[in-house]
């Protein structure tokens, strides 16, 4: 098996691993999981798909757009918003070797297995801090939408801090 084939296979493994990665609890501007899946699907030679399973083609700038870049004088770098988002969405071409991609897999699975969380067993002293034992629980409840803050509890936090 050639080394590029090995890299592609490893990248597929990495994509599978990333698909098991915990999803963001709340919506952020960018999602680590989605960005990295897109990145490694490219390396694996898989087509990128959107939420509905349709493949997304990476669009190259058309001749008109290139002309427009050259002629434009206003706007940041002479670019318009549309073009800027295109640049932002552009993926960098990366060269992986067998070694480096396997390192990526190892590092990612270390993170996903909570290796350091388990190794450095910090204990309830910090997970349930004495000054505010419910702090993290309330935070997680609010993020997960399990238990909403009522006006009363919210005001209590504002006034007394906990």
């Amino acid at each position: 098996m050639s080394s590029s084939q090995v890299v592609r296979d490893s990248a597929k493994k990495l994509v599978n691993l990333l698909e098991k990665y915990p999803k963001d609890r709340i919506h952020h501007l960018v999602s680590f999981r989605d960005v990295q899946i897109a990145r490694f699907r490219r390396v694996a030679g898989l087509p990128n798909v959107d939420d509905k399973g349709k493949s997304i083609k990476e669009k190259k700038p058309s001749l008109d757009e290139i002309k427009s870049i050259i002629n434009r004088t206003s706007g940041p770098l002479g670019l318009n918003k549309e073009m800027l988002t295109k640049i932002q969405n552009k993926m960098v071409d990366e060269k992986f070797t067998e070694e480096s991609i396997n390192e990526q897999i190892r590092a990612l699975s270390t993170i996903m297995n909570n290796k350091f969380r388990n190794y450095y067993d910090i204990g309830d002293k910090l997970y349930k801090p004495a000054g505010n034992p419910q702090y993290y629980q309330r935070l997680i409840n609010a993020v997960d939408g399990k238990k909403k803050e009522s006006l009363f509890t919210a005001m209590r936090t504002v006034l007394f801090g906990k």
Partner: protein
Amino acid sequence: MMSVNRFTSGRLPVFLRKSPFYYSRAYLHQTCVFKQNKETAQDSPELLAKSSHLNSKPLDVSNKAPVKTAQNKIPLAHSKYESSKYELPKWKEALGELVIRAFHLDMDRVRAGPVAGSYYYKICKEQGLQYEDEPLSETAKYFYEDLKLPRTFSQWFQITVLHEWILFVRMRAMPFKYGRNYQQKLVDRTFSDIELRLFEEMKVNSGRIADQYLKDFNTQLRGAIFAYDEGFATDDGTLATAVWRNLFGGRKNIDMVHLESVVRYIYSQLYVLSRLSDREFATGKFKFVPPGVKVEKLTPKQEEELKAKTIAKYEALDKDPKTLPSERSRLSYTN
């Protein structure tokens, strides 16, 4: 308050002394927590980050504004009372002690300023501090060279916030009244310092623009603290995502090994903090473990020894009639 300044001037130099980068001794009262030998060195966050073979070049278009040294370089400590060389005149010191004794001042509350606002802010600030024309410190090398972060002011802010959050986690475990005060002092100082640096070092001329930056940094701080808290309370995956979004600015071609290294770095700091008692932490007996050092876990026996040592030390201090009122504290040393 004068007597408080005495604390800063008299005590802190011991911690602030420059020490060689590789520690052979522990911070936790000279026990062997961070024994540095060649075998364990394989595992420090720094070496982990260096071990990566992925030669990724992050797109770095933002580095248009390197941080310049101000003409009169802003010291880490602004006031003369914070300087390690300053010594309070004896009569002022005595007067201060008298005031504390006469009015029964709560020293734990008073101490928040010099410890959290000055010393803890200083160590957070130092971690990522860099100037265009100066060589990087050892810790800064880890962030800017090993992790390939851009050398900008806002990146410095993100590094500082990460360290402040690590301290926040410990401060929450203090009695609420005091921990909250420590957090407040740390944040207050952060923003007053940033404001100064924006004018002096980043050469922002307009107050309005500086205000906009400050508001922006405030939003970033809230977002980062929330994200790290969420990660800390759930799992490493979420914590790594928070690090990626904040510290790495959502870099697309992130090296996972770097991410792993930072997660390791965070947990090793938190581990040390979790083994410190309230009294030690509140009197400023903590400093960050350099990224080149691996934090070894304590065995139960070592942990007991450490606790016994701490208890013996502070019991003796509390009993000693010669202990000055400004050195007394009601915070627990047994936890």
